[in-house]
Structure formats: C-alpha cells, structure tokens
C-alpha cells in the first residue's frame, strides 16, 4: 500500500441484504433490488432518508437494467441522492462497495449504500450472453466464450507444475462437489442439489477441460450493503463488521502481450491479495483467515486462486483440494455459501453476495452453514479473462 493511510477499520458494514438468486422469472430487476434493499435496511435499523450517497453496480447494462445510476434511484425511490453507477466486469459488485466505503472513509458522507444487481436468465442462454467486445477487439479476438478463456488456465497450470491432467480434473471435480454440498445448505442459493465425483468427472465437455459441473451458471439476483462511520455503527449495534481492506488490481496488458507470464496464475489476484494482506495486517493467510469466498466462475479458477491467495504453495493446490483443506470442515473453508457455482452469479451482484456471506458468518448468523467463530474473512472477485482482468480482494473482520 503506497501513499495514503488506507481504510482499515475506518468503515463498518451496518446492514446487508441479498435476494434469493436463481431463475427469477416473476421478478423484475427493480423487484430484486427492492428485495435485497428491504432486508438490508431492516438489518441496519436505519431509515432510507439517512442514506447520503449510493453506488450501483451492474455489468451488462444492455441485457438488464440499462445504463446509468437511474435504475437504482428509481427502483428504491431514493430521495434524489448522489448515485454513481459502476461497471468493472465480474468485479462490479466489489467495485460498488469500494466506492461507498471510500466515500465514508474520506469523510464525504457518514452513511452510504452499495447495491449490485443483474438479471440474466431472461436472455434464454445458459452462460454469459454473447456480446460485442467493441469494434476493435472483435476484428481479431477469437470468438471465445467465458469457459473458453478460463479453460486455458488449466492447460498452462498443468504444464507449469508438470501435473497429470487427470489429477487436475479430479481436483476440479472435488471443488464443484464441495460447492454443491455447501449450496444445498443455503436457502438463497440458485442450485441446491448435491452432486457426486462421477457426475462432475463425466459431465459433457464445455471447453477442455471444463465440463458442465466445472462451470458456474448465471443467475438473477441483487445484493447490497449499507456502510457507515464506526461511531454510527457502534450506536446501532454491538457486533459490527469492519472493512479491513478492499484492493483492486487491473491488468495492464503485459500478461496478454508479453511472454513473461506463464499463464498458470492470475497476476492481479496476487497483487490485490498482497496489498489487502498488507493493509489488513495479515502475514500468514492460511493461519489467519477462517473463510474465503472466491471467484469460482470455473473450478479451475478456484483451484489456481488458492495458490494466488497464498493458501496453497505453488503446485500444491491439487493436493490440498483433494485432501479437503477447503471443504466446509477443512483448514480454510472456501465457498461455504455455495459460491458462484451454486449460490449463483448475477454478475453485478456477485461481489456483494460474497461480502454478504462474510458478514453473516462474522456475526454468527449463517444458520446451518455457520462456521465456528470466524475472525477474518476474505472475498475475491475477478472480472475478465486470465490474461486481462480486474481483481478485487476484500477482507472483513471484527
């Protein structure tokens, strides 16, 4: 962390809400926003009029709510507040929270709202909708799908660590079996059925080696947070959750166009995590974190992220995963809420959904999936493709 003094413990999350994720045919984007917001407001014990500013995250405006901050202001009938709309690919939700947190940390306002929403199932397509990458990139980019971009991570990871393809695939399957088992415990999750190793290993191939169960789907959903100065948080409740750090790192094209990067790690995840650990005062993440919610858009992403976050040694994630280190009863559980894989992935809401689970877990309110007394939780929200992306890492604690 360079320059300023950072944001550690300067902002508390005083309320959160999250809609049910899934195929919400009967709900409009506005309905989803209201559902998340009403839970959040009641949780905070505040009135809507006490909110001074808002940040709205939605990624694919052409497919759901439309551009600008207006959809949020209209859905919640916000009292002509300053509302900013942010978009940073799949890291949009954390980006919205970052805006609200920075405003409070800077003293620009005392209470701010961050809300992310996406409604994707109406496109009638199982994955992310095919969309233009602009008049320039579309001239030369391969006609790639999202699984096609992250599948390449597997080929490079396996080569870099001289691993057997079957072992990597088994670890990928274990990750998805674990997330399905966790998601089955979560009433708000999109996918709530357990699966077996055999199902995961034998599922139809999407993009080698990513099979059907190695890929998260997309969902409809919204999630939000109200953040405030610590003094306000203390006046509202006892068990506040504090923001220890929110860091983002954005690719500058070096991985994409120079040969130094081996393709087997996500450069931005490593940098964002390093900055976040420094700001939060964490030196040994595997010992100090009790839970991670990571961007498991694909099982291979989660596998590699365990190394990028320093939770596994280089080349050891396959063994750690197969040993159950990140299972619900493991050393550092990952995706206790089901993750993108099963809670679902409404793009603009996902970062805030991860924060929502961290918030519940830190307050001991996560029901049947509650972990024993977590102190520090990390969320990891990644947008783009392995070679060119935005990574947001947040750390929350007491």
């Amino acid at each position, binding site marked *: 962390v360079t320059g300023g003094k950072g944001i550690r413990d300067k902002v508390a999350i005083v309320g959160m809400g999250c809609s049910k994720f899934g195929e919400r045919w009967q709900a409009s984007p506005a309905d989803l926003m209201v559902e998340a917001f009403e839970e959040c407001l009641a949780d905070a014990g505040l009135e809507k009029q006490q909110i001074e500013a808002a940040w709205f995250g939605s990624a694919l405006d052409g497919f759901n709510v439309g551009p600008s901050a207006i959809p949020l202001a209209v859905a919640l009938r916000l009292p002509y507040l300053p509302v900013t709309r942010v978009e940073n690919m799949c890291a949009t939700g954390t980006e919205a929270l970052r805006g609200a947190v920075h405003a409070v940390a800077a003293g620009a306002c005392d209470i701010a709202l961050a809300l992310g929403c996406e409604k994707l199932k109406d496109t009638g397509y199982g994955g992310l909708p095919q969309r233009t990458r602009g008049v320039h990139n579309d001239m*030369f980019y391969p006609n*790639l799908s999202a699984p096609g971009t992250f599948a390449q991570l597997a080929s490079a990871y396996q*080569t870099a660590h001289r691993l057997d393809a079957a072992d990597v695939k088994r670890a990928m399957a274990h990750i998805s079996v674990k997330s399905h088992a966790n998601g089955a415990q979560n009433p708000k999750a999109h996918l709530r059925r357990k699966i077996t190793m055999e199902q995961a290993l034998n599922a139809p191939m999407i*993009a080698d080696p990513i099979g059907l169960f190695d890929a998260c789907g997309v969902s409809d959903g919204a999630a939000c947070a109200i953040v405030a100065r610590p003094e306000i948080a203390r006046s509202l409740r006892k068990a506040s959750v504090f923001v220890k750090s929110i860091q983002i790192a954005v690719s500058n094209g070096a991985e994409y166009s120079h040969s130094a990067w081996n393709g087997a790690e996500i450069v931005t995840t490593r940098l964002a995590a390093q900055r976040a650990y420094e700001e939060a005062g964490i030196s040994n993440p595997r010992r100090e974190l009790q839970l991670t919610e990571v961007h498991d858009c694909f099982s291979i992403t989660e596998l590699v992220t365990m190394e990028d976050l320093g939770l596994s040694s280089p080349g050891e994630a396959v063994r750690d995963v197969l040993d159950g280190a990140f299972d619900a009863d493991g050393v550092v559980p990952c995706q206790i809420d089901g993750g993108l894989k099963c809670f679902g992935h409404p793009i603009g809401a996902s970062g805030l959904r991860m924060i929502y689970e961290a918030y519940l877990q830190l307050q001991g309110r996560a029901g049947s999936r509650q972990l024993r007394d977590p102190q520090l939780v990390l969320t990891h929200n990644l947008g783009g493709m392995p070679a060119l992306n935005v990574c947001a890492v947040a750390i929350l604690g007491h």
Partner: protein
Amino acid sequence: VNAHCGARAGFSERSLADARGTVRTWTADRLTFDPDPPAYFGTVDFDGGGRLMMDFVDVEPGRLDVGTRVDFHFRIKDIDPQRNFRRYFWKAAPL
C-alpha cells in the same frame, strides 16, 4: 507504452507473417459458435517476442498442446451472409 521501460516512441514495425510461434495455452470451446466445432483457440508466443490470443486452424483432435509449434495463415474469420461480407484474420496452424 513499453510496460518495462515506459518508452512511448522508437518502435519499429515487424512483419510476423512468416514468423513461427509456440502454443502457451489452448482450449477446445464447445459453447461458443463455430461453423466447425469445437472452436480451438489459445495464446501463442511468437519467436523473438510478442504474444497473441488467436484462433487455431487445421487442428487434428488430440494433436494440440502447450508447446506445439505453429505458423500463421490468413484465413476467413467469419462470414456475414446477409451482407455477403467476409472478415479475415491470422490464425495459427500446428506444424
């Protein structure tokens, strides 16, 4: 802008049409549209420096892997049947 030294000038144009390269990452994508699925693409490192994510062409199933040597061909990238317009770009073919 050069990512290492920050230089903004002094670059020279180099033709890569006759260059060769090495596959660094690859996949066979069955979700995306392709007239002849699966769509093979990945990252190619050019001999002498530089990298591009690009389509692979003339791939025999099972013969493409990290480390495969490739050369480059100017091929049809897609066809717009409504406007009868063809778009071309370079693709990498295994040697």
